[in-house]
């Protein structure tokens, strides 16, 4: 097709009809929930997260009602413990993190001029996991079974089953399940940013929102897995009595605190950076100029991401760690203020240099910066260890974290709500109600949380259900309670504003006159995402590229049609966004939802110790995943190439490093390897905790022989898989089948030999932390050997069924990538448990 073909209105109309048919949402009461298009899934996701936020907010109000006056008896201590635990846990796990993912699922494809993210069904899977896990965790309070150990669940209070009930299991298993959906979203977003940008959008032209999301998604990969490792150890202790955190049997509760806060501190930045990313989009729009200091923002995002992993011990300043360790973490905590301040100054400078239009979203943005800066300054104070020793576990810290999280996450999200509401619904929210809500919120947050600085310094401890009148804290607490209810009134005004929205007229397209791609969206609710995928030559194409909107709308750029009736988008290269291929996207299906529910059943049934049923759930999950992969991925296209306009022809099948699937496997395995390194950290942590290691009485297990056999067999399985890949690329299917069979046998042998080490030496994991951690590392690696066998069998079946050929080899390339990580964990595990006791 040439450029001039698009001059024909009839052709354009026919193209639009085809696109509309391909992207039509499934209809019907039941079928519509099979949708996986980002506009539907993203909207459900946002709405669910918002409801969880309101729910957790009500829990907060109940706490404030109890604390309004001294010696109040409105709520008993047991319920109060559940309230503060669930308030914190829900706000972090069920609102802040999922909300960033939800907003990104809606915005990112629009910002990148893609029809959808590369794995729409994965987004749907993530959503259903989030919904199920969220209802499970949040609903527990209605049955008086909510977790009650604080949102960080410190052992031994929470690991001893005589001190804490089923709530601790609900927290661990329910939230682990949600962490799975977070990692799924991270995979989706990273691959989306790196591989699905429009042609011409080199790294230096990427919208800053995409930079932030890339950084944050990478942070999730390194932050969440240590918590998953911690969850594994925690549940092993609760369900199987393996003493990782029990000091009487060689465990150490501090190990949990390390693993939790290696997650917990980056988490703060994981929820802060995406909200700041919204500023990076709306500040230029309302300053009516390009954002100043684009590389400085990239510096700030990347720098914050790195430094945030060097802060975790500042939550543990009072645990008696060596002072020198505290010094390192205190230093890093001060250093992180530099990149944080840089981005704030960039926004201020841009506003200063622009001609500012003081709209409602900008009011929220500037107000939230003010609130955030106060929280940041108290953060600088508590980063100083001696000050923290005084303020730790008082309301001063409560004040600090709420200023940071409300100023850094919640209010910016409201700014984003007012800014992007027209993009989603086609209608503007009310400026009058919005400004009213802002001032109520602003007064409420300061009235609620500022007095907490004072009550904290005067000695008000956190997490107590009441306080004596003699402390003289009654007035300050009453002020905080009044502020909390005022804040809630502000949120209610925003809810009212949203409820009134359907009655308002449609706004213009691009109502704020913004310059970035997401505003190409039609208010008239077209599901195709973008009419044609543009060639990008500027950071603000709508402002800078002449006739840009018209050319996109008339299909004058790439991929303006859906001739084959398939959902498609363009894959480009990482650095320069050169077009590489057209990929076919997943269509509405039940399988993501079924997979999510099957996986959820494993976690939920385990909570109630129904192990037989949980095992059935695991088998069902595996079946769903295989069904999903077999029917929906690595499909061999009906023709090798497809024209996308302007004389460009792109392949319809790619594999290896340029393919989104390869990246998804790589990213998933990075997360997997990080979780594994959390367990390895546990092993060496116990080494530092014991005079002699392994403890003398247990020194004879697991020996070096069986671990070395397992290591060798794992290595052989890896080499045979590599050989099978090259046999496949030569077209030698028979040789590939033989090599893969050998690889499966070797992986099975590696698993068996791995188990033989601790088994034959009679290591009893309930006796001491040493045998427990040896067993855990072994089981982790043996489970991966099991996964390797399943993957190798899958690839073998694909090859024999003709769904994988010499050229169409994505399956075996991705499995080889898995095997690289597998062999790494085999070497680390067996060298650690087999050889380290010999040398230590």
């Amino acid at each position, binding site marked *: 097709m040439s450029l001039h073909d698009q001059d024909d209105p009839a052709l354009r109309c026919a193209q639009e009809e085809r696109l509309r048919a391909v992207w039509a949402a499934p209809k019907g009461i039941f079928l519509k929930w099979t949708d996986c298009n980002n506009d539907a899934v993203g909207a459900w996701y946002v709405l669910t997260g918002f409801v969880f936020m309101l729910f957790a907010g009500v829990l907060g109000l109940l706490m404030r009602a109890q604390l309004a006056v001294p010696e109040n008896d409105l709520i008993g201590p047991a319920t109060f413990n559940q309230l503060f635990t669930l308030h914190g846990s829900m706000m972090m796990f069920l609102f802040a993190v999922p909300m960033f993912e939800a907003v990104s699922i809606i915005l990112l494809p629009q910002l990148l001029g893609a029809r959808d993210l590369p794995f729409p069904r994965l987004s749907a899977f993530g959503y259903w996991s989030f919904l199920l896990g969220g209802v499970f965790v949040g609903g527990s309070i209605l049955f008086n079974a909510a977790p009650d150990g604080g949102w960080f669940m410190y052992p031994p209070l929470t690991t001893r089953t005589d001190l804490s009930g089923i709530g601790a299991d609900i927290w661990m298993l329910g939230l682990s399940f949600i962490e799975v959906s977070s990692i799924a979203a991270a995979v989706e977003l990273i691959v989306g940013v790196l591989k699905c940008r429009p042609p011409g959008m080199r790294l230096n*032209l990427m919208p800053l929102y995409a930079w932030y999301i890339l950084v944050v998604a990478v942070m999730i990969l390194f932050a969440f897995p240590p918590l998953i490792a911690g969850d594994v150890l925690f549940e092993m202790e609760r369900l199987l009595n393996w003493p990782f955190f029990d000091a009487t049997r060689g465990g150490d509760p501090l190990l949990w605190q390390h693993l939790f806060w290696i997650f917990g501190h980056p988490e703060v930045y994981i929820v802060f950076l995406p909200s700041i990313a919204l500023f990076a989009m709306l500040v230029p729009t309302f300053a009516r100029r*390009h954002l100043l200091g*684009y590389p400085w923002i990239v510096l700030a995002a990347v720098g914050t991401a790195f430094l945030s992993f*060097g802060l975790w011990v500042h939550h543990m300043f009072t645990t008696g760690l060596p002072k020198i360790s505290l010094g390192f973490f205190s230093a*890093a905590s001060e250093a992180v203020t530099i990149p944080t301040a840089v981005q704030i100054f960039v926004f201020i400078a841009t506003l200063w240099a622009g001609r500012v239009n003081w709209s409602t979203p900008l009011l929220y943005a500037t107000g939230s910066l003010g609130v955030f800066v106060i929280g940041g300054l108290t953060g600088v104070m508590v980063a100083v260890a001696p000050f923290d020793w005084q303020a730790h576990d008082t309301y001063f810290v409560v004040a600090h974290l709420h200023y940071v999280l409300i100023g850094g996450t919640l209010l910016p999200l409201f700014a984003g709500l007012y800014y992007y509401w027209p993009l989603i619904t086609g209608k503007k929210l009310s400026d009058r109600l919005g400004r009213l809500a802002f001032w109520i919120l602003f007064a409420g947050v300061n009235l609620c949380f500022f007095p907490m600085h004072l009550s904290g310094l005067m000695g008000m401890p956190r997490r107590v259900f009441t306080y004596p009148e003699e402390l003289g804290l009654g007035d300050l607490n009453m002020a905080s309670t009044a502020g909390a209810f005022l804040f809630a009134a502000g949120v209610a005004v925003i809810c009212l504003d949203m409820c009134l929205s359907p009655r308002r007229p449609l706004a213009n397209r691009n109502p704020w006159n913004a310059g970035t791609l997401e505003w190409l969206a039609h208010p008239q609710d077209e599901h195709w995402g973008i009419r044609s995928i543009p060639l990008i030559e500027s*950071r603000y194409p709508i402002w800078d590229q002449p006739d840009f909107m018209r050319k996109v709308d008339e299909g004058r750029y790439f991929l303006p049609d859906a001739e084959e009736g398939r959902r498609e988008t363009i894959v480009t290269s990482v650095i320069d966004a050169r077009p590489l291929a057209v990929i076919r996207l997943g269509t509405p299906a039940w399988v993501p939802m079924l997979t999510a529910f099957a996986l959820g059943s494993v976690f939920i049934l385990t909570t109630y110790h129904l192990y037989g049923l949980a095992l059935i759930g695991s088998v069902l999950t595996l079946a769903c995943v295989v069904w999903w992969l077999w029917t929906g991925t690595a499909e061999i296209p009906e023709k090798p190439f497809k024209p996308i306009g302007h004389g460009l022809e792109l392949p319809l099948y790619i594999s290896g490093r340029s393919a989104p699937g390869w990246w998804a496997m790589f990213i998933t395995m990075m997360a997997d390897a990080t979780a594994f390194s959390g367990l390895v950290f546990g092993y060496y942590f116990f080494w530092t905790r014991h005079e002699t290691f392994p403890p003398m009485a247990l020194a004879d297990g697991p020996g070096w022989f069986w671990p070395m056999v397992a290591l060798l067999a794992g290595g052989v399985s890896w080499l045979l898989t590599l050989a099978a890949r090259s046999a496949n690329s030569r077209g030698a299917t028979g040789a590939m089948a033989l090599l893969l069979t050998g690889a499966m046998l070797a992986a099975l042998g590696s698993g068996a030999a791995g188990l033989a080490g601790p088994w034959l030496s009679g290591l009893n994991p309930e006796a001491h932390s040493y045998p427990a951690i040896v067993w855990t590392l072994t089981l982790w690696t043996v489970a991966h050997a099991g996964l390797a066998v399943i993957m190798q069998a899958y690839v073998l079946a694909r090859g024999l069924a003709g769904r994988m050929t010499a050229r169409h080899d994505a399956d075996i390339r991705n499995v080889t990538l898995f095997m690289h990580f597998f062999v790494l964990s085999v070497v680390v595990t067996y060298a650690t448990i087999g050889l380290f006791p010999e040398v230590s």
Partner: protein
Amino acid sequence: MSDPAPRKWEHRLRITLWVLIVPPTSWAAHFLFSYLWAAISCAKTGHFATMPWLFIGGTVLALAVIALAGWVAWHQSRTPGDPPPHQESTRIDRLRFLATATLLLAALSTVGVIFTALPVVFLRECT
């Protein structure tokens, strides 16, 4: 897409995203090294300053890697092309943008490494 990349700079234009994270990765490695060095010697011997040369060597190495990355980035950022803000869709602008960002990260990482090293100057005991 006009891309007036002079032939003599051609080799510089082939880069990856990984170069961007060399300086902060050096900071992270140094930080982890410092933490492990102090934590292990405190846990195992009860005092940490047994091998100050190891610590000094590690710090100098981290600063050297950062300086090297910064030096490369500085040269890359001087590749002939338009002045900032590097917002053309050309390979040169893309290179100069990444180089500027790497240079900034090198500066931040230098500060970070010095911050991390300072407690060792002032503290001499584990407890």
